[in-house]
């Protein structure tokens, strides 16, 4: 699959971000060996590939968990108590934003403004929105995920 993606963009340095996005989506992270292969195939310096991969936060240079737990930390959600919700999620998962647990089950992320400000604070797990979330209900939401 990954080789297919690399072949699709061979010789196209301008497609670096597209290639990395597809590989990230497919593989859930960007191992160094694959970064090297991408850099070689797309004819960009390895340092440039590393710069892009470390710059954009949707790319992960370390393995991510099966489930992405996202707490919106946009301005409205912040006003409505996102910090308390995040503190609760940190407590439940034992993670800080950006970290993944040792079972690779959850990755905790802080993200800003996913556009559902009216129902903040929001918890988004694997793309599913849980609006009007309170710290008390957060644990129950996570229990649904294996």
């Amino acid at each position, binding site marked *: 699959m990954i080789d297919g993606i690399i072949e699709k963009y061979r010789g196209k340095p301008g497609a670096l971000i597209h290639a990395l*996005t597809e590989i990230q989506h497919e593989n859930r992270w960007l191992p160094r060996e694959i970064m090297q292969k991408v850099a070689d195939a797309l004819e960009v310096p390895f340092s440039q590939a590393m710069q892009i991969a470390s*710059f954009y936060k949707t790319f992960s240079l370390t393995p991510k968990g099966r489930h992405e737990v996202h707490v919106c930390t946009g*301005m409205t959600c*912040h006003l409505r108590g996102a910090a308390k919700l995040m503190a609760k999620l940190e407590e439940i998962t034992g993670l800080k934003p950006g970290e993944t647990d040792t079972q690779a089950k959850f990755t905790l992320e802080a993200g800003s*403004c996913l556009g559902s400000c*009216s129902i903040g604070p929001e918890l988004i797990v694997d793309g599913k929105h849980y*609006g009007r979330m309170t710290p008390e209900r957060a644990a129950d939401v996570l229990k649904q995920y294996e």
Partner: protein
Amino acid sequence: MPSLQTTAELEELREQIRAARDPSKPCIAVCGGAACDGLDSAAVAAAFAAEIAAQGVAAKVDFRITGCHGYCNKGPNVLVGPGDVCYFEVKPEDVPEVVASAAKGEVVDRLVYRDPATGEKAVHMSEVPFYKHQMRILIGDIPRIDPTRIADYLAVGGYSALAKALSQMTSDQVLQEVKKANLRGRGGGGFPAGLKWETTKNAPEKTKYVIVNGHEGESGAFMDRAMLTGNPHRVLEGLIIGAYAIGAQQGYIYTRHDSPSMARHITAALEQAKELGLLGKNILGSGFDFDVELHFDVGIFVSGESSALMRSIEGNTPEPRPKYIRTSVSGIWDKPSNLNNVETWANVPEIINRGADWFTSIGSEKSKGTKLVSLSGHVVNSGVVEVPMGTPLRTIVFDIGGGVPEGRAPKAIHFGGAMGGSIPISMIDAPLDFDGMAKLGAPIGAGGLLVMDEDTDMIEMARYLLDFLVKESCGKCTPCREGMYQMLKILTNIIEGKGRKFDLERLADLTEVTSLGSLCALGKTSSDPLKSMLRYFKPEFEARIAAGSAAGSEAK
């Protein structure tokens, strides 16, 4: 549907579609916008589809899933026509009754709006206070169309402006009309769109690009996503008209990667427009060729800045370029590129259809037309709102927004997210516009209006906004990278009671230098929120610093 070769064929198709529709037929529209979706409107929509089949009334009741109706905190929203009956907080259990009553032209009383103070009912959209005070030129169509069906857009008059522009106006005439309308950029810059178009048009290079900036990174702004998800054709039509006026052959829609429904709707819109011949070669027989590509961001705020966005479309890191290299002259791959915000493009069709004079009759002296506002924060009614420029903020916060929940007092209003500013509630009679609000230190930015109540800690808000920007800085230039971080450290110290007397002096210097010396708008405006907090809420800072050093010396 076959490809349309002329504007006459387009009008014929429109007539056919309209003739096949009965305006008096009941229609149920379920909102699939971001907030309603988060409140599980998908389950409600599924229930409707099932119930209509179960009751066997598909021939008697139309059903569609639409984009954002606007009244986000009251979702799931359902609009029943004819008559625009608004139902709020609809649950799957309510669905059978709604279907049955719609078929009979009746109203389900318990689901309609009730005034929280008087209990008075408002059944129709025109009576509901939230909607009553708006002027919904841009978003009014959203509840009436299924964004994945181009026929719906044609039925409400879509692409008639494009037909008019291509068949009755030269590219210069289109450009002059937009200039005359004084359409100013809605993404935050407020720069006259017509002038930008003209610069791009006059640039010597033959290859030109037009871009829709749908990045919407501003915190608290969600109207662009509502527009792109709910009526992508409107934006697309504006883009095609603009490309015609400017002489561009290729367009890009650049938007966020994290909304699957928005991606689906834009993709469908592009496909269907192409199928009908509204994109591609020789559009409607005019000899004008134009194509559009959809690009996604990869999750970094600075890629919403126009020159950084163009680097991103090229496949490079989104590092912004200095503003004196104008992107209208040298943009994507150094070719003239005209970038405008979603809302700016969405205004173009009506300006062409109804004329610049109509547009300038709305709004205030220097800010014309309407403005989409994302109303949120400590406010009773929150959602996507559209009002004429010049509307007093009081109208938006109280008449539309319903004031602050639980009877608390409002303290401040914030515009422009992390690059805007706050004004105290004493200034609530200020009109919504570009220049006046900028003078007050709270430029409206993309239009995200945040209401903050009496318990809000303004120092913490300033710190929070800087924290956001610090993570988004690209890191190239010293004033932004180092200056913002030092400001953040000082504010954190103040909040933790470690503030010191010369902190305010250091903050003043840092805000001044970051504004003057930074490379791009992110750095230049990064200290604006803090500046406005210091301008209007300085006593809070001084008190906190004094309390901190008092506590500190007590500890000794």
